[in-house]
């Protein structure tokens, strides 16, 4: 079942075409990687797909839980916002954009759970603890404010917050950048388990081809706002057809 479908999606920032004619389907339980150099339009595409930026052309269709198809930009903005707080999650590259820095870590997670309809204080607290544990944040930091966290801890808190409402799709913008390698592995495993066992669909923007290779089923390679090559992750990375993809792959340090 498709959860996100993009049809001819396009967006310009002034004279720059950040995203041009992107069409694809993301299915339930599927992990899709979006790779390419900075400035290639990855983040713009991610924000379009999540309904956070309005496209100039094309549409995004969200396949809801009960099979209904919602054209993301035909529904009212309030409905889009509600989706983003419940069934969709968006993890920003800069965690400070996705967190409230002045309220506690627990409060950040609780806020999302309450917006998602949870009413029991105890359930909220337990859920917050559960997700903190899953991203390997120490429980005794539940009451600290994110501004007192290190960069890597903020990144993990933002991920925990987004996963707490058990969304159907999460959009991740460079989620492992700035994380210690050991934590990075844990987060990748968490996403993999949520996808294979709980049906979570993931759109993952990364410049790290190793991360894309280990986690995603399919990938899209972006250059100058266009998807220049896409397909099974291992086929695209092991047998790239486009000169630009070949350059990307051959620039990996070590063996992917």
């Amino acid at each position, binding site marked *: 079942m498709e959860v996100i479908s993009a049809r001819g999606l396009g967006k310009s920032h002034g004279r720059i075409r950040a995203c041009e004619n992107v069409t694809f389907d993301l*299915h339930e339980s599927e992990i899709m990687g979006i790779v390419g150099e900075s400035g290639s339009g990855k983040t713009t595409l991610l924000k379009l797909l999540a309904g956070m930026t309005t496209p100039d052309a094309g549409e995004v269709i969200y396949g809801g839980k009960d099979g209904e198809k919602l054209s993301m930009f035909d529904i009212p903005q309030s409905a889009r916002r509600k989706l983003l707080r419940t069934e969709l999650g968006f993890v920003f590259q800069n965690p400070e954009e996705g967190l409230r820095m002045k309220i506690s870590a627990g409060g950040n997670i609780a806020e999302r759970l309450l917006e998602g309809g949870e009413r029991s204080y105890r359930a909220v607290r337990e859920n917050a603890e559960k997700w903190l544990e899953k991203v390997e944040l120490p429980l005794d930091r539940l009451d600290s404010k994110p501004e007192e966290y290190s960069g890597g801890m903020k990144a993990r808190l933002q991920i925990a917050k987004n996963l707490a409402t058990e969304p159907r799709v999460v959009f991740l913008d460079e989620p492992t950048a700035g994380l210690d390698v050991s934590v990075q592995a844990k987060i990748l495993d968490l996403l993999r388990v949520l996808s294979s066992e709980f049906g979570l669909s993931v759109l993952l923007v990364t410049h790290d081809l190793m991360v894309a290779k*280990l986690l995603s089923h399919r990938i899209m390679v972006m250059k100058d706002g266009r998807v220049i090559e896409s397909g099974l992750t291992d086929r695209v990375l092991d047998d790239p057809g486009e000169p630009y993809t070949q350059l990307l792959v051959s620039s990996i340090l070590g063996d992917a």
Partner: protein
Amino acid sequence: MEPILAIKAANVSKTFVLHNLGTRLPAVEDVSFSLPFGKCLAIDGPSGSGKSTLVRCLYGNCLPTAGSVSVFGENGFVDLVAAGPREIMELRKNTISHVSQFLRVIPRISALDIVAHPLIEKGLGKNEARRRAGTMLHELNIPERLFDLPPLTFSGGERQRVNIARGLIKESPVLLLDEPTASLDAPNKRIAVDLFLAAKKRGSAIVGIFHDRDVRDGVADWSLELPSKAFGPAKRNSSPPAVTL
């Protein structure tokens, strides 16, 4: 009765085009064979003759430049050259397993979970999947104290056995083996051979690259020799490949 074919490869060629270096590397040239279920074909040939590339073409990891590769999946033959990514994912989930020389996994996942994962992906419950993974690891002589550890900490031979366990656990109808026993000692090699034979007996078709003579002779029914590329362009096989059905 006609044997049921698992794989049909017709005139498969693969040339890698390296755009940034301005070169073309022919890797596989005009290979044809067919293989029924329950049989094993060994791919022979000197280093650099395209053995791995050919096997990768059978897994959908590599897109042939010419020819076709069809694998018999749950709903009949699927042409890997024409198939979309989701069809190939489906085929990999239910029909084809690939065992390479190396175990490439997300770090920090335990050996047991790595081996159980293909079953969970197929929809089996977590506990049952882990139970079967344990049995499989036992069969491959992995001591139980290692089950909960990530294989990155294991010896080369242990890692390779985890890799074999992961590849065989699903009992896939089509098995692709790329030097799966290269770092195993003699007793473990024998165990691996027995597992491959058991897979054949269950009806799996196997295509394998085996540098080890004993393993190859113990498992393969036929062989296909790829010509060396060391001296100029490869010669076409003057006779059809060694496979006769």
